[in-house]
C-alpha cells in the first residue's frame, strides 16, 4: 500500500490574494522567506485555521498580513510577548512569530532572550537584512562593519549581534540559520523548527536590495543572495575542518537542538505533581 502523495504546495492557497501584490520592494528577500515558511506549513499539514502568525513592526512585520491565517500585527518588538500570551491561552494554535533584526534584537531583545529561556512552543522566524528598511535604512544591531546606513553616514563601527549565538546562549531549544537562496533548505529548516516541541529560533539571512544594497553598492538581489551564499558555511561542514576555511563564515543549518522541557508541558507536569489540576 502506498499513501496518496501530499498535494503540491501552491502558495496562492495560503495568500490573501486581494492584498497582492505585496508592498515589499523589488528583490526583497522577505518574500522568499515567507514562501519557505508557508511551504513548511503546507508540508506539515498545518491548517490555515490553526495557524497564527504574530509579527512586529518593520518590513518583516508587514508580511504576516498577506497570509490567509489568523494574523496579528502588533507593536514594535513585542510579537514574542504577544505570542506568549496567545500560545498560553490557545495551545491548539500553531503560533509563528515573524520578526526582523531590529524588532527582535534591538527593541525586542529582552523578549527574545526570555522567550528562549522559557522554551514555550513558538516558532520565531527572524528576517535579518541588517537594516531598518521601513524607516529608511538606519543602522541595526546586525549591520556589518563599515556598512553605510542613514545613521552611519561614515560607516558602521559598532559590533554586531550573532542572533543565533544569542538565542542559543539564552537557552533556545532549537536554533538555525539559512539564506533565502537555498529555499528548499530554508523550508526544511523551518519545517524542523515548526515541528520542534519548544521555542525554535530561525534566522533567515534576507536582503534589502533597494535601501541597504543600493547604499552599499551590493548589487541587485541576485548578486546579494550570491554573496550570502559565498559567505554561508553549512553546519554539516563543521566536522570536516578544525578551523573555518572561510574568514567571513556564516554558519547555516541547524545550529542547536536541545532536549529541554517545553514551557507549557513543564507547567502542566509541575501543577499535576502538586495535585493542583486534574
Amino acid at each position, binding site marked *: 500500500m502506498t499513501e496518496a502523495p501530499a498535494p503540491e504546495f501552491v502558495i496562492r492557497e495560503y495568500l*490573501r490574494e486581494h*492584498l497582492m501584490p505585496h508592498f515589499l520592494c523589488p528583490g526583497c528577500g522577505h518574500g522568499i522567506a515567507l514562501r519557505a515558511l508557508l511551504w513548511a506549513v503546507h508540508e506539515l499539514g498545518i491548517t*490555515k*485555521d*490553526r495557524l*497564527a502568525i*504574530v509579527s512586529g513592526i518593520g518590513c518583516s512585520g508587514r508580511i504576516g*498580513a498577506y497570509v*490567509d*491565517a*489568523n*494574523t*496579528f*500585527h*502588533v*507593536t514594535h518588538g*513585542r510579537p514574542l*510577548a*504577544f*505570542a*506568549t*500570551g*496567545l*500560545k*498560553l*491561552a*490557545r495551545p*491548539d*494554535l500553531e503560533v509563528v512569530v515573524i520578526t526582523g533584526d531590529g524588532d527582535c534584537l534591538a527593541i525586542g531583545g*529582552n*523578549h527574545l*532572550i*526570555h522567550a528562549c529561556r522559557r522554551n514555550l512552543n513558538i516558532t520565531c522566524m527572524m528576517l535579518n537584512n541588517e537594516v531598518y528598511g521601513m524607516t529608511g535604512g538606519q543602522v541595526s544591531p546586525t549591520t556589518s562593519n563599515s556598512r553605510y546606513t542613514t545613521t552611519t553616514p561614515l560607516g558602521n563601527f559598532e559590533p554586531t549581534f550573532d542572533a543565533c549565538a544569542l538565542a542559543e546562549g539564552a537557552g533556545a531549544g532549537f536554533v538555525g540559520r539559512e539564506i533565502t537562496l537555498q529555499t528548499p533548505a530554508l523550508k526544511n529548516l523551518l519545517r524542523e523548527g515548526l515541528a520542534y516541541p519548544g521555542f525554535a529560533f530561525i534566522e533567515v539571512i534576507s536582503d534589502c536590495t533597494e535601501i541597504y544594497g543600493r547604499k552599499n553598492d551590493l548589487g541587485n538581489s541576485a548578486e546579494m543572495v550570491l554573496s550570502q551564499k559565498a559567505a554561508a558555511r553549512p553546519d554539516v561542514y563543521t566536522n570536516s575542518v578544525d578551523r573555518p576555511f572561510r574568514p567571513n563564515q556564516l554558519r547555516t543549518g541547524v545550529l542547536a537542538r536541545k532536549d529541554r522541557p517545553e514551557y507549557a508541558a513543564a507547567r502542566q507536569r509541575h*501543577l499535576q505533581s502538586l495535585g*493542583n*489540576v486534574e
Partner: protein
Amino acid sequence: MSTEPATTTQNLEGNEACALGAIAGGCRFYAGYPITPSSEIAERMASELPGVGGVFIQMEDEIASMAAILGASMGGLKVMTATSGPGFSLKQENLGLAVATEIPCVIIDVMRGGPSTGLPTRPAQGDYMQARWGTHGDHAIIVLTPASVAEIYAQTIRAFNLAEAFRTPVVILYEETIGHLRETVDLPAPETIEIIDRQWAAPDDRNFLPYRPGTDGIPAMPRPGDGHRTHMTGLTHGEDGFPTQKPEAIAAANRHLSHKLEPHLDRIEQFEIVAGEDAEVIVVACGLVARAAKRAVAKARAKGIRAGLFRPITLWPFPTLPLQALLQPAGAVIVAEMNAGQLIAEVERHAGDHCRVVGLNRIDGEAITPSQILQQIEELAND
C-alpha cells in the same frame, strides 16, 4: 425576596480583593511584573489561577506583560495585568494597541507618588490623566476608581464585564493606601454575580468583518480557529481589519474609537452622590479622598452647612451630566485630589459660570484629611 443570597465574609486587603474579583469576573490569564504597591495582586493571582484552569505568568517586563495579556485575550481568555505608575507608563504602548484593535483587557494601576520612582509606598492620585490620555492618539477608555476593599472586588468584576461588552481596555485606579487596606468584605455568592461574555463571531458567518460594528456599535470578535482567519493590526484599519489609507475610512475608524462608548454611558457611568439634593457646596473626589470627603460632608451637615459629595466611580468617561445636574443649584465646588490638579480641569469645563471651582490638593505623600476638606467647605460656605 425571602431568601438572601449566600455571602462569605472575609477580611481582605484591597489588592487581594482585586485578585479575587478578577477570578470571580472570569479572568483566566494574568501576566505581570513586580512593582510596589501592586505586587500582592500578582501574588494572589499566581496562587488562584491554576485552581480555576487559568494561566499566570510573570513576564520579563511591564511591556511584555501588557503584550502577553493582549495575545491571550485575542486567544479568547479574559485577561488582566496590574502595576503602578511607572509600570503603567511602560504599558501605555500596548494599551494603545488594545485601544486600536479593541482588545478586552483589564489593567490595575495601584497609584503611588510620582513622578518617576517617586514614593513607592505612599498614596497618590497622580495617574488620573495618565489613565485617560497616557497612550498615544485619540481614544475612549474606561477608568474606574473604587474607594473601598469591597468596591475593589465589585468594580474588578464590573471591569471585566465592561471590557468584554465594549471591547475596550478598562483601567482600575486606586491608591496605595486602599490597596494595602484591610477591610471586612461580604463576597457575594458566585451565582449572584452578573457575568458578561464577549460577543463572538458566528463560525458560519462567511460575510463576517472583524471591525464592522454590531447593532450595539461594538464589533463581534473572531475566535482563532473558528474559520474567519482575520487580520489584527495596530495600523489604522477598515472594517475588514486591513490597513487603510482612505481618509473616509480612517475618519470612520477613529470616530469609532473615540465615540464608541457614548451610546452606552448609562451602563458605564457609576457615581455616588452624598447629600446632594440641596447642596450649596459640592465636593468632587474619588477613591481614598472621597472617603475623607464623605466624613467632611457629614460634619458640615452637622454644622448646618449644605454640603454634598459627588464621587465618580467611573472616572472616565467622566459622568458629566450627573455632575452638571448637581452643580445647577450649587454655588461652589471643591475638587479634592492628591495631585497638583488634574481632575479640576475636567470639573471646571462642566461647572458653568455660576459655580465657583476650587481645588484642594495635597502632594506631600500624605492623604487629604476630613478636617482639611471641612475647612475648605466652611470657607466657601461663609463666602
